[in-house]
């Protein structure tokens, strides 16, 4: 079973880190990416780069900013192959964002034959 480990971070936490700390953090994320069972993932650019598209009167309306102003920002995700939810949450618990006040949402990925 594949799970998406969705990473939500608190705004500003990354910016407050020193360059050395950021470097160490990136290495941690890369190392997790190389763990057995990790199938993929991505880190997103800061939310200041976000653009939102909605339909207004049937036409795409493009605006600046994220889809919703929330306390936590979607920052990236991993795709992880696991036997069950416990294994997935165990891996999720290792994601560094948690230490910085972030939250991980674990969602099973829809399979072709589930």
């Amino acid at each position, binding site marked *: *079973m594949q799970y998406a480990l969705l990473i939500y971070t608190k705004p500003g936490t990354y910016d407050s880190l020193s360059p050395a700390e950021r470097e160490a953090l990136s290495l941690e994320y890369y190392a997790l990416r190389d763990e057995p069972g990790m199938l993929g993932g991505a880190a997103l650019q800061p939310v200041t780069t976000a653009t939102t598209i909605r339909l207004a009167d049937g036409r795409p309306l493009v605006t600046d900013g994220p889809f919703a102003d929330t306390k936590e920002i979607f920052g990236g995700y991993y795709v992880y192959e*696991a*036997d*069950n*939810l*416990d294994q997935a*949450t165990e891996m999720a618990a290792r994601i560094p964002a948690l230490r910085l006040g972030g939250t991980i949402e*674990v969602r*099973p990925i829809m399979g072709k034959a*589930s």
Partner: protein
Amino acid sequence: MAEESVAEAFAVAARRWPSEGMPTSPAAWLVTTARHRAIDRLRRDRVLADKLRLLAATTPEVAEAPVDDNEIPDERLELIFTCCHPALAPEAQVALTLRAVAGLSTEEIASSFLVSAETMKRRLTRAKTKIRDAAIPFSVPAGDRLPERLAVVLAVIYLIFNQGYSAPGQAGHLAAEALRLGRVLAALLPGQPEPRALLALMLMHDARRRARLAGADGQDLVLLADQDRALWDWQQIGEAREIIDPITSSRGPYLIQAAIASLQLAEPIDWRQVAALYAELAELTGSPVVRLNGAVAIAEADGPAAALEIVDALDLAGYPYWHSTRAELLRRLGRREEARTAYHDALARAGTEPERRFLRRRIAEC
């Protein structure tokens, strides 16, 4: 006689503590039917248990195990841990446990929650769908995860017990159900002290069942100190004490609570010792409700003024027993007007008819 109502508030709050954070209101737990159920029914009626096992993500070992008709594996522990998985909502954990482990019907559970059978069916279906689609495992958690997972199971069983205990008559059978679940869990996890401690705790509270309500309709709360001790089930109390006495390996939250319950059955009650145990429990849990209970013991040991100081510092204005405890302390300090206001605040939040009746009596006396 009125002096002792604090003790009852304290006893009630002590029983409620592990269910803190559970969203269901006590009133929603009234049960219309009282019927005996044996947990062993699971053995006979394995349909739902088997379904859940199939829904859940089984470990490869289990999935590949050869099926021997003569030897049905005892999977009750796996079943309990699946039903009480923290990835399920607390009300779903309770409903699934009652359905799959205790063998109650959906209709019975629905009436316990005061929801329609249709709503309960949806709640159970949603939970079973999540077990399947998120692959919640059908297994006993590994050693390092066991304590936190066991804490959820114990909280679910104690919640079931409390709902049965706080609304006897309508929900009395839930207390019996919880005792049965407690016995099974203690037997299946012989190396763990906390399930045994929970069982002892429930046995001691349950032993006072016939003494704590009186009146023509059995809805008048009798305070601990006023209870007829001849109505207590001393055999059950003896059983409970035999369970906890040999436990020396750890002092978990249920063992401490069981020790407190045991002290409360003594005469006279050693309140200083009770206060010390509550201090230990508060240290362990960080729960303000535990501090509230500790304050009640301090009121008995050191007087109401010292206790009120502690109670007033607690941020528990949403908790009915905070108001009733404050009211009792104010009354004992002769601050009648303030006591009356606090009793009214407690009455507005009281969950059961015996509690409401008791508070109305107190208001009339103020």
